[in-house]
């Protein structure tokens, strides 16, 4: 098939022209600044001073920076849980809502999608009203009914759980939509055939649904991984990275070092490391995508 395609699609000018606007915009406003960022990671640079080349000093310091590594492991934990739980929950929602059989299905879909329409700042504000230790609704109700409050945002581990939970709440609807589309693309005949063969629901799910949904699940995985590495606003509003360093992610630390501590060079070095890690993540995910394409 590849061979076949190649024979007909020999034009090289056409694809480049189609890509041009994208590459132009992207190159000028993301790639060029990113390369500048790379250069800066080898300098000592405050915003009002001229950069001074210091070789690998930033990276050496980074290796011993305990706060950075704490935020690093927080980022991994946060991403791992957020991405996998989002996939499970969004898939569950999609399975409940893709068939076009239940009354009010569309309304439900819209309802679940609403959180995704909100800005992360709004999401953070809304959930502070709910999870606040003293003033939050949940703890208020718990105390009214004689129990004691739960330190949702005050205990380090629980704060991480809360942040992950809210991230799932805020984004699941978005991925549910993508997954519904994927589920609906699976030909109904396959299911009918399976029913005739007497396959159980579980069997149908593992033998038909999951394999055919793989490319969609990969889209969801890649997009939610990217989003999780960039969670900035939500955490700023909800915990400010605390208590202590419990929910501080690399992005927060980069921002603080760059703008509050005025060490642009060191912050650049941190982001280079962040980029390297994510590239590894992406490469792994691409291994899967690549395989998947060969099937077609």
């Amino acid at each position: 098939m590849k061979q076949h395609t190649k024979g007909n699609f020999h034009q090289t000018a056409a694809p480049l022209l189609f890509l041009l606007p994208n590459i132009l915009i992207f190159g000028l406003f993301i790639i060029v600044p990113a390369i500048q960022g790379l250069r800066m990671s080898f300098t000592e640079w405050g915003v009002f001073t001229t950069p001074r080349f210091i070789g690998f000093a930033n990276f050496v310091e980074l290796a011993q920076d305990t706060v950075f590594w704490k935020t690093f492991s927080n980022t991994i934990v946060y991403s791992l849980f957020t991405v996998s739980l989002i996939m499970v929950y969004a898939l569950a929602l999609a399975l409940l809502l893709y068939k076009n059989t239940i009354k009010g299905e569309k309304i439900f879909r819209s309802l679940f999608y609403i959180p995704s329409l909100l800005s992360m700042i709004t999401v953070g504000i809304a959930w502070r009203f709910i999870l606040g230790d003293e003033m939050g609704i949940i703890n208020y109700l718990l105390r009214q009914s004689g129990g004691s409050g739960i330190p949702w945002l005050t205990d380090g581990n629980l704060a991480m759980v809360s942040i992950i939970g809210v991230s799932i709440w805020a984004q699941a609807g978005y991925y549910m939509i993508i997954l519904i589309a994927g589920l609906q693309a699976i030909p109904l005949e396959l299911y009918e055939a399976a029913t005739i063969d007497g396959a159980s629901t579980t069997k149908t799910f593992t033998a038909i649904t999951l394999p055919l949904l793989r490319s969609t699940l990969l889209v969801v995985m890649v997009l939610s991984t990217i989003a999780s590495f960039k969670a900035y606003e939500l955490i700023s509003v909800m915990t400010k990275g605390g208590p202590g360093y419990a929910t501080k992610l690399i992005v927060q630390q980069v921002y603080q070092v760059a703008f509050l501590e005025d060490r642009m060079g060191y912050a650049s070095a941190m982001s280079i490391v962040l980029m390297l890690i994510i590239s590894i993540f992406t490469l792994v995910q691409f291994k899967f995508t690549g395989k998947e394409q060969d099937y077609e």
Partner: protein
Amino acid sequence: MNKQKVYNTIHYVLLIVLALATLLPVLWVVLSSFKPQSELFRVPLTFLPQKWTVQNYVSSLQAGNFPVYFSNTVFVAVVSTFITVMVNLMAGYALAKYIFKGRNLIFTIMIATLMIPLQVIMIPIFLQLKNFGMLNSLWGIIIPPAATPTGVFLARQYLVNLPDSLIEAARIDGAKEYSIFFRIILPMSKPIVATIAIFSFMWRWNDYLWPLIVITDNKKQTIQQALANFVGQLQINWSDLLAMTTIAIIPVIIVFLAFQRFFFSGIAAGSVKG
């Protein structure tokens, strides 16, 4: 049959419980926006306002220059959505349906840069925008983030699944490459266009960081900036903040409802497995 009924009931109950849990925080914000400021943090907490008031809306609409913020945001969101869809669909098409040198490299670079937190390269971006004279111009918010890797990614994933035979047939008929794109690919891409459009509109509507880098001029600010202005150094104007938050949600919901027809039903119809 009976078993089916039980199953349906469980299905519904589950959906309703989850939907309530999903909506509660949003409802809390909306209802709180009708409370007078003195009621917001008063114990006992109440779900419904004890004294309903629209004063918050009146004062938040009067603060600053709401009509200007609103029309700026509409302008930015609509124009950039249009540009984003076109630019990314074309790029996605090139990556999905042509084989050429460096294709995978370009795609990989795009996906990798998806990961750069914008905060990190803010200063170089600011300087770049300054070079192009785009500071304090709405075009400075519209153009630079228009090439979104996410959009390219979604477009490519969708277009890969369109049958090559259509394109080949058109080529044999002597159609030009651009007319294949506009006459054949674009009409078949309605669902993905709708998807990218909704995502892009939402993102632009809610985006805070790009306007922050580009705009200081009060006459060019967007709604999200206006929202942030209610949080001061020492005080937070909660009632205005909540009221304007509620106002800011409405347009995205309208756009979503308008487009959701294509969004939901279309994707399945369009994606013929290759």
